[in-house]
């Protein structure tokens, strides 16, 4: 069965520092991977996605993620964090069936706090 693990429940960084949020997945075939961000009480905003091709994907707000099949990982990175990046970050994997997507399976999330 598919699963997603985000080992870090909380991360605190200083503004301007670099950031890496970890994500490991379990999926039998080539995964479709996503990172979403959620501000308190708000909806889910897609940061970036990996379907195939280049394993380093660029997203919005200066985020990027690298797919590493050998490590079953899809870590999210940002070179310089802004105070507005404080939020909950979810990694997700989608199962693929019959030419279309099935459900998204989310990790438990990582809450990011940013110190001024």
């Amino acid at each position, binding site marked *: 069965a598919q699963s997603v693990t985000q080992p870090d429940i909380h991360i605190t960084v200083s503004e301007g520092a670099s950031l890496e949020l970890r994500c490991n997945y379990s999926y039998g075939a080539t995964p479709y991977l996503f990172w979403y961000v959620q501000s308190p009480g708000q*909806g*889910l*905003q897609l940061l970036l996605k990996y379907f195939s091709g280049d394993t380093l994907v660029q997203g919005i707000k200066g985020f990027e993620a690298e797919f590493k099949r050998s490590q079953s990982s899809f870590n999210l990175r940002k070179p310089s964090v802004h105070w507005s990046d404080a939020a909950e970050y979810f990694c997700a994997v989608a199962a693929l069936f019959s030419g279309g997507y*099935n459900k998204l399976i989310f990790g438990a999330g990582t809450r990011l706090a940013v110190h001024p």
Partner: protein
Amino acid sequence: AAGVIQSPRHLIKEKRETATLKCYPIPRHDTVYWYQQGPGQDPQFLISFYEKMQSDKGSIPDRFSAQQFSDYHSELNMSSLELGDSALYFCASSARANNEQFFGPGTRLTVL
């Protein structure tokens, strides 16, 4: 660009009451997904529809039912509400050819 619309945005109900949540997908999207996010939890898949037929089912209680209508909007019906049903309910839509899910803002349901 048009986004996924959910209504109502907030809903307060008493135990044992019923609730209906509505989702209007992005135009030309044929697939709708429902997710439930409890306090401090990650979103959990409930059910999905493709072309008005149920395509997959997750951890949806028997007290809940859903359908997708001819105009592709979807409704999640929840009966005999329990305190534990208090959560944020998200709807997402996708076009089969694109396969990327776009999320609505969610409906916050509070059961008292």
